[in-house]
């Protein structure tokens, strides 16, 4: 039932899903790109990527903007997301709500999402309707209306969305408080993407317009088309619809570094509304765009080895012993600015929190002292990369990965050659990255506990 906005939260707190990519580098001789995307740019600065797939007569369009919740101005968190909602309220040649209706009339789907790093609008339709969706997307890229009379009802919708995702979910509230505690309530990484409630209410029409003017220039956008189209015809269509969007100056993102140490080292929340506890431990970490970027790929391997399901170190020490019912590690290499490495676990019935915390710390301490086991590194690399080609099954994965990377300022090789980048990671690099990140005394710990415990 959740429509319109798949709010992508930056930190994945759940399972350590198998990952993608590889930083900018020269691909090994003979290595084929995963998607073979064609790239070009328009004079107004819009970058375009096309991935052909002729399996069925279907096409999808994604327009990514290089701005997300991380670009919200201080004190006005939630603008990027509220703006995304208001982008459906009409443009010069398309009445409010008509984009979705016209797409549906042709049997298609459309939606949008706001993450910390990007905002993306997308449609999927039968291939002959590409011109229709391009025309409408280009129109709102150039001339959105943001009609003031529709702002109040949409504000209510956003607040209901927040109540649904966060305010009526003690675990989501806790994760939000943990992020704010670690990075700071007004730090770009510490604020919720949907915004603090009082700040969402404070957003004015002029704030939306200013955000749009600042970030939604064609030169700060990436158009990704995937599906059944002829390259030459597609190029003409892109030029016809997007070529006329006026160029505007852009200024690069300027994201603050993390605080010198977590603002709150330990957050313990007791809640009568929950029945099972939850443990979080997070460290500031480099990414492909921040800090010691060469540690980013080894950290992806480390996350799998430490908490990527059965056979991982945390699973063995916590879940197989009954101390915890779940234990995971997560890390995203391809974020904009500073990132984090996260460990999470749910204690077993009757496990004292101290026992779980000590057992998790012991796993990490042992890893830091002994270094990464080469056999485990090899197994993690194999399991992370084994399914790379599965993302060709379906047409949504390629545009999402390409658009996110390009709009985050990363080169296309990060997506096209990620498996060989992961395969190039050595046990020594994993050890070094683990010592640099998990060995630094810059972690934050969080406990959500039932009130009765």
């Amino acid at each position, binding site marked *: *039932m959740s429509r319109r906005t798949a709010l992508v939260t930056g930190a994945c707190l759940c399972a350590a899903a198998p990952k993608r990519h590889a930083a900018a580098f020269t691909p090994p001789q003979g290595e084929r790109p995963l998607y073979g995307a064609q790239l070009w740019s328009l004079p107004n600065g819009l970058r375009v990527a096309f991935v052909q797939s002729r399996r069925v007569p279907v096409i999808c369009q994604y327009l990514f903007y290089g701005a997300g919740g991380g670009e919200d101005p201080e004190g006005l968190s939630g603008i990027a997301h509220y703006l995304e909602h208001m982008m*459906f309220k009409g443009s010069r040649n398309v009445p409010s709500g008509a984009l979705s209706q016209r797409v549906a009339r042709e049997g298609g789907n459309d939606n949008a999402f706001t993450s910390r790093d990007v905002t993306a609008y997308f449609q999927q339709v039968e291939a002959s309707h590409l011109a229709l969706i391009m025309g409408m997307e280009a129109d709102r890229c150039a001339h959105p209306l943001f009609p003031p009379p529709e702002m109040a009802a949409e504000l209510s919708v956003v607040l*209901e969305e927040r109540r649904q995702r966060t305010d009526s979910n003690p675990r989501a509230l806790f994760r939000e408080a943990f992020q704010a505690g670690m990075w700071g309530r007004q730090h770009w990484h510490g604020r919720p993407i949907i915004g603090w409630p009082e700040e969402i209410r404070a957003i004015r029409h002029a704030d939306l317009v200013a955000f749009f003017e600042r970030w939604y220039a064609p030169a700060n956008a990436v158009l990704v088309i995937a599906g059944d189209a002829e390259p030459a015809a597609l190029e003409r269509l892109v030029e016809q619809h997007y070529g006329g969007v006026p160029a505007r100056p852009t200024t690069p993102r300027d994201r603050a570094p993390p605080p010198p140490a977590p603002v709150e080292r330990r957050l313990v929340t007791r809640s009568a509304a929950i029945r099972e506890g939850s443990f979080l431990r997070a460290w500031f970490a480099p990414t492909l765009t921040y800090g010691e970027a060469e540690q980013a790929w080894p950290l992806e391997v480390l996350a799998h080895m430490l908490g990527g399901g*059965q056979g991982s170190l945390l699973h063995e020490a916590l*879940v197989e012993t009954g101390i915890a019912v779940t234990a995971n590690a997560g890390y995203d290499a391809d974020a904009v600015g500073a990132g984090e490495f996260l460990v999470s676990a749910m204690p077993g019935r009757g496990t004292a929190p101290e026992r779980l915390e000590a057992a998790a710390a012991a796993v990490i301490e042992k890893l830091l002292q002994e270094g990464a086991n080469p056999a485990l590194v090899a197994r993690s690399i194999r399991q992370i990369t*084994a399914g790379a080609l599965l993302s060709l*099954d379906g047409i949504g994965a390629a545009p999402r990965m390409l658009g996110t990377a390009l709009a985050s300022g990363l080169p296309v090789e990060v997506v096209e050659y990620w498996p060989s980048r992961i395969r190039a990671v050595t046990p020594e690099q994993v050890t070094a990255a683990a010592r640099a990140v998990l060995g630094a005394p810059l972690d934050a710990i969080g406990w959500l506990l039932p009130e009765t415990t």
Partner: protein
Amino acid sequence: MAEGFTLPIQVIESDGISAWLTEDHSVPVVSLAWSWQGGAGLEKAGEEGTTALMASLLTEGAGDLRAREFADALRDDAISLSFDSQRDGFEGGFRALRDAVPAALRLARLAMTAPRFDADALQRVRARAVAGARQVMETPGGQARRAFWATAFPDHPAGRPTGGTAESLAAIPEAAIRAAHARQIRRDGLLVAVAGAINPAELRALLTTLFAALPPGAPEAPPALPPFIDFGSRVVPMPFPQSTILFGQPGLAVQDPDWEAAQVMLRVLGGGGFSSRLMQAVRVQRGLTYGISAGLDVLYGQALITGGLATQNAKVAEALTVTTAEWRRMAEDGPTEAERADAIAYLRGSLPLQFTDSRRIAGTLLSLRRNNRPLDWLAARPARLAAISRDRLAAVASRLLKPDGLSVAIAGQPAGL
């Protein structure tokens, strides 16, 4: 054009097992899905979750492979193999790269024919399931769903959670899990659907490898679904600023000649996207919710008409009043001609979108088989849809929709009810 778009479906048989196949070699991936009747429908009161626990344990060690070795064998080749206990059926399936299909077959066959049910695996999976069941009850959605189904079907498996409750899961003996395996995983009564890079000869061999060694005889049929009990409204108090609301009423049989007319009418009333009357009235015009939808929910060959939304506690009464008014307006007048045309255009035009990935294609084919549809169901669907008149939609709305007979389960602190 999208008229009747469907990939050609072949029927492949081997050893008395038939599979529907859409063959496509453009991507080196194969997806299989198969099912039997049964699932949670075969569980007695107090045993709920037995079949779900069994389903989880099938991939937690089989043959000579202990749990971790089995998991490594799957993950080393990126094979996603899983089993799922549903309200009235049991499904298995895998997706694998073409080169990994032999390994996937070996593991899937082992899981079905020689699951280990090791004590340590059972203890671990049970602990996770109990924690999961307790966590579901932390959420207003979980509480509202539990209240809705338990009240609508108090003396039937449909009224109990397929995943079990913390209490039932804690008490299930290992013998009951083995018994659930023995009654469910059979060679007969199987429906199979396949999509992707596999040809008919390969599929014939696959069917034999995968299923021929299973014990003969089909799982028994679960008890027929009793009539839906209209329970008015039921509130589960929860300390949150927002209430989660589920509503529902009886619908129609999957084989009812009005099935597709009902789909069209409900698309107009509460279908996905922004065009539905409920979305317009409740979200777009009044800002009362992030999302509202209503549609057919199929179980035991019947469909209920169910829907849901979440709104702040102070607005529950208003949201329900608006929803009921839309229900009544549709029951009395049916859709307009323009709404009819839009809804049918959507349902026709969206057909190719169901064929973009192999897992989804296999799932679509399996649903057709479970609903006993003929092979040409999708190909002939546009013509059938085009023949549905506005008057027929009005008649089906009048026949089905009961604005005064909506049962409502609410979790939260609703005001003014």
